């Protein structure tokens, strides 16, 4: 036995911890995959439409936006057919909002695991966000079909789409960590989140273009960390004007701040989750 040579693993009072043990999370990457796969499998078991639901929801949202904002309000859409404009916005927003929601509820729905087995807790919200990528992928296929029908092939900037997607996922994860931590103690967090995402949706350029915002206020508007990725997604997929550097910097800085706050909040409370869940 080489146990004598193995390093000690300490368990000391967890107060005041501010960082996560990322190498350990990497060590548990298989668990993240399994938990994410479990989510996917379970969600679409015994559902006749299965993965189709991933497209139905954004399609309905797009239809509503098209009627209300496209037809009635005549919201500007940066020279792109409003249907395409809205659909792109909706699927990117859905990726973010669903990921955020899944991350928030993930800890409580895995309470049985958290109170019985040790593993880095952050794997749970991480595994909650990742399955949303599959839904996004399915929606993206539909968008591709729409683009072909509309004869609007994306430009070479489409290679930057993964960056935009990563941005959304990391943001959902980071903000999700804050809500997930609060949700463990106060179930109000989920209700509050529902309200927040509703307001946030209309504070983001999903159903309308940010060109509605006066230019001198754009950077303030872009402090909403979803402005950058939404404009970026439309630029890569629909060839609308690219987001300005100011917008990118503003969104990126608030986004990173939110992610940093999320990781910090989570790390501070990680060791005590099993006691309060």
């Amino acid at each position, binding site marked *: 036995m080489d146990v004598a040579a*193995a390093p*000690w693993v300490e368990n*000391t009072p967890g107060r005041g911890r501010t960082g996560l043990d990322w190498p350990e999370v990497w060590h548990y990457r298989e*668990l993240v*995959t*399994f*938990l994410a796969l479990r989510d996917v499998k379970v969600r679409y078991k015994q559902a006749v439409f299965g993965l189709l639901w991933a497209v139905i929801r954004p399609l309905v949202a797009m239809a509503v936006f098209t009627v209300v904002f496209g037809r009635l309000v005549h919201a500007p859409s940066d020279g792109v057919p409003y249907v395409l404009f809205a659909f792109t916005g909706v699927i990117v927003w859905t990726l973010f909002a669903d990921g955020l929601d899944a991350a928030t509820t993930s800890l409580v729905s895995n309470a049985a*695991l958290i109170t019985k*087995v040790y593993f880095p807790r952050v794997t749970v919200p991480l595994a909650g966000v990742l399955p949303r990528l599959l839904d996004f992928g399915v929606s993206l296929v539909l968008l591709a079909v729409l683009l072909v029908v509309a004869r609007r092939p994306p430009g070479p900037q489409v290679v930057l789409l993964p960056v935009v997607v990563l941005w959304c996922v990391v943001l959902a994860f980071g903000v999700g960590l804050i809500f997930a931590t609060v949700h463990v103690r106060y179930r109000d967090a989920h209700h509050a989140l529902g309200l927040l995402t509703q307001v946030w949706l209309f504070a983001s350029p999903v159903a309308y273009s940010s060109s509605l915002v006066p230019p001198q206020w754009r950077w303030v508007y872009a402090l909403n960390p979803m402005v950058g990725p939404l404009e970026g997604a439309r630029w890569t997929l629909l060839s609308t004007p690219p987001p300005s550097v100011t917008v990118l910097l503003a969104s990126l800085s608030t986004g990173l701040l939110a992610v940093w706050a999320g990781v910090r909040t989570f790390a501070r409370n990680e060791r005590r989750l099993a006691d309060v869940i």
Partner: protein
Amino acid sequence: MTGNTTIEMHGVGKRYRLGGTAAPDNLREALARGFGRRLRARQPPEESREVWALRGVDLSVPAGATLGIVGRNGAGKSTLLKILSRITDPTEGRSRVRGKVGSLLEVGTGFHPELSGRENIFLNAAILGMPRSVVARRLDDIVAFSGVERFLDTPVKRYSSGMYLRLAFAVAAHIDADVLLVDEVLAVGDAEFQRRCLGTMETIGNSGRTVVFVSHNLDAVTRLCSTALWLDAGRVRAVGPTAQVVDAYLLDATPDAGSRVFADDPAAPVALASVATHGTSGPITGRILADDPVVVDVALVLREPIPGLDLAVSVETTGGTRLLDESLSEAGPPTGPLTVAGPYMVSLTLPPLLMPGEYVLNVWIGTTYETFVWESAAGWLRLEGSHRGRPDRLLSSQGTWTVTTPEGR
């Protein structure tokens, strides 16, 4: 010393807050209180709402040892395991473990009803920290051990509870761990399952891995563990060789272990003085082995001669099933020995018929026409030892077997 230990704990304590006052349960309350705190002067902290589930625990376990943890409900046994396994952090002190830690805290933790048996094996193994490649290699072993081959691709929600348990235990039994933490696995399942669990645990214990085992089943603890730790109200009461610790725990757990004294009634023609039980190997340990004959001593005072006086001792299960009802007259001459006034000690020696467990003793003294003493639950009998693999039976006759062939070869 430290060169060979795998588990070390120094002054480990864990404090829990109780109730809703110390920790507001919804945001509104938390916010309200937050503002309140600003406005009002600081209130004294509510110490009374806090409970130390563990306090000042020092522990050092050498590699390859099997440590049993005994104690009453709420003594902190599970909290200790949770700190060892890092599920929760200690409030004070530090705990450290060397090598890979595996927890077998509750059979089937992490199983998802919608997933198939195969999917659950991989998921559960990942939760227990086993790499996919290792599981794939051991899949056949795990499946064979569980005995659910035919249902491997069926969602586990369609499994019987027995199949479910077997599969879960099969995964847990195949995890690679230098230190295995086991909590009350034997609390579930039928006799067959429990026997299997115990057997596997024995194998694991003998394979040089360090095992920490928590159970209310003292029989299992005695069988599996070389060392035992007795926790009482969050503190360590004793650590040492299992037999000694378990004995001390049992003595403490039943303050009147083998004996009960009754208040004298001077007016009664016959009065019960005391009832005591002990094994034939000696009353000192307070521990009676099921393999030994059991002696029930009934002390009584006879104040006047009563013709045809008889005494009976009956043994019941704690559930109230009467197993034995032995009377003095059955053994001796019909007139009976209790003829002259004075103190008597009547002893009944029972052959080792009863299986380990708890029994209630009743004492009756009277004649065919009259009952003078009827004391139900006059005494307790707690038998220790091994079920010898059959925990379901109450009695073992130790009857003799013979095997012959019809031809008389």
